[in-house]
């Protein structure tokens, strides 16, 4: 009896893997079909507005030989430094306000009010303050990430079961131990989901800042191509951004699955 059930779960696993492979094949086929259609319509009806996949590929190779990597490096540096600073600030503020009622009463409405300003509109101001290079964009990313991480951590801390805290308290945990053993690990899940949400926003904040000025970065590349009416350049920069976006979110999902294994085992 047990033997049979093992076989059937084995089969279930195999079918699932098979299904996933079939889906992947279809997705690749669909992607290639879309590219072919793009190339074909471009060649038949003219490619002034749409460029051509073949031209984009050539441009990618051309840029790859010059300073594409410098642009990518600048944008990624802005994203990661801003993400790190914003996460630390947002988590610290979220923990402090989430655990201290009076602080939350005073400061939270102020933070909510500030957040109602569309944050990327701060870019011109920040560029005036911090200059055209990386610093101003890092500050912009930090601000955007701070708010997202703050709200996530705050909600996370509030949702911690007070009985978990009480249990440790009764064992004689100090305030620091209470944070280290209960609150920080419980907040971890929220912090990761916060980073997952914040990442695309961080990338868009960095590139938006770059659109307004600067000498390197994918946003700079975009605005330069735009002002020169260089369709192929625009599409190439967008495709590079797309790939970076996918890699970043996949990376976070991978790390999350490993660090938060306990959350997935029950399912």
């Amino acid at each position: 009896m047990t033997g049979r059930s093992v076989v059937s779960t084995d089969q279930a696993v195999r079918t699932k893997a098979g299904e996933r492979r079939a889906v992947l094949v279809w997705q690749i086929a669909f992607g290639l079909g879309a590219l072919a259609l793009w190339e074909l319509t471009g060649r038949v009806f003219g490619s002034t507005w749409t460029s051509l996949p073949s031209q984009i590929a050539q441009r990618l190779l051309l840029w790859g030989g010059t300073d594409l990597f410098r642009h990518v490096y600048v944008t990624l540096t802005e994203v990661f430094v801003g993400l790190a600073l914003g996460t630390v600030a947002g988590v610290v503020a979220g923990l402090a306000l989430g655990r201290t009622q009076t602080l939350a009463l005073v400061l939270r409405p102020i933070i909510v009010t500030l957040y109602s300003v569309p944050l990327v509109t701060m870019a011109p101001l920040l560029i005036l303050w911090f200059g055209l290079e990386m610093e101003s964009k890092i500050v912009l990313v930090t601000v955007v990430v701070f708010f997202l991480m703050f709200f996530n951590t705050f909600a996370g801390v509030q949702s911690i079961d007070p009985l978990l805290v009480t249990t440790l308290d009764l064992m004689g945990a100090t305030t620091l131990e209470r944070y280290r053993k209960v609150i920080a690990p419980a907040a971890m899940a929220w912090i990761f989901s916060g980073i997952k949400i914040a990442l695309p926003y961080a990338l868009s904040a960095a590139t938006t800042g770059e659109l307004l000025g600067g000498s390197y970065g994918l946003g700079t590349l975009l605005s330069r191509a735009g002002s020169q009416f260089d369709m192929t350049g625009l599409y190439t920069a967008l495709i590079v951004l797309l790939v970076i976006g996918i890699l970043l979110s996949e990376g976070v999902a991978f790390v999350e699955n490993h660090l938060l294994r306990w959350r997935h085992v029950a399912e």
Partner: protein
Amino acid sequence: MEPVSAALPEKINFSGVGKTFFVRGTEVQALQPIDLAVRAREFVALVGPSGCGKSTLLNLVAGLLQPSEGSVTYDGKPVQGLNFRVGYMTQKDTLLPWRSAADNIGVSLELHCRSVSKAERAERIAAMVDLVGLSGFENHFPGELSGGMRKRVALARTLIYEPETLLMDEPFGALDAQLKLVMQDQLQRITQDRKMTVLFVTHDLGEAIAIGDRVVVFSGRPGRIRAIRDVTLPRPRDVFRMRFSEEFSRLHEELWDELKDEVVKGTDI
């Protein structure tokens, strides 16, 4: 035969202790003023219908709640703030979901105030895992364990740091009948060996008589004490067979008469 604990000093004292809660502006009396003294090393089982304030009593001893009237003393001193001398096993198992069973059991030994060497911690965890029958599940997360297993992890976690007093709120409620007996047997042995004082809340009258030195029957809400009986069966008891003894039957019958009315009353509501 007089129970051993008769000669021992008083550990916990409730005198005129009542508790009233405010639920959405209305006053709800959970506990009518009660008097109860628990001696050191005594095992007191509290039985009664749901919502009769038994859990409230435990919360008062742990210092999680303050009485609305009367006073609760521990070792002769009023309970003020959290009472670190007790180990509290709440009805809901408050395991840390991100820690394995073994790491949950050993969490108290990581705290500064109870810190032990890594080797000793591992040794004591292993002994506890063995004791509560969780071998092979040490590295499972709480989300992977059944309700009964989680209860056993919670029990091991409470026992491992050997608090002098145990507060237990229906610890074996979720276990199957056989395992319940095994756990009762182990609990009475551990608490005897380590000379612990125990306040044990249960729904199960048989369980209360099987492991208690004294059984306190509560009435339904608002809770008050309806009957108290000493269980003079000698220790160590054989929880598997004592159910067939004469004294057990007599006590069960007597106390069931007290409890029956309350249970029936409870079903009317």
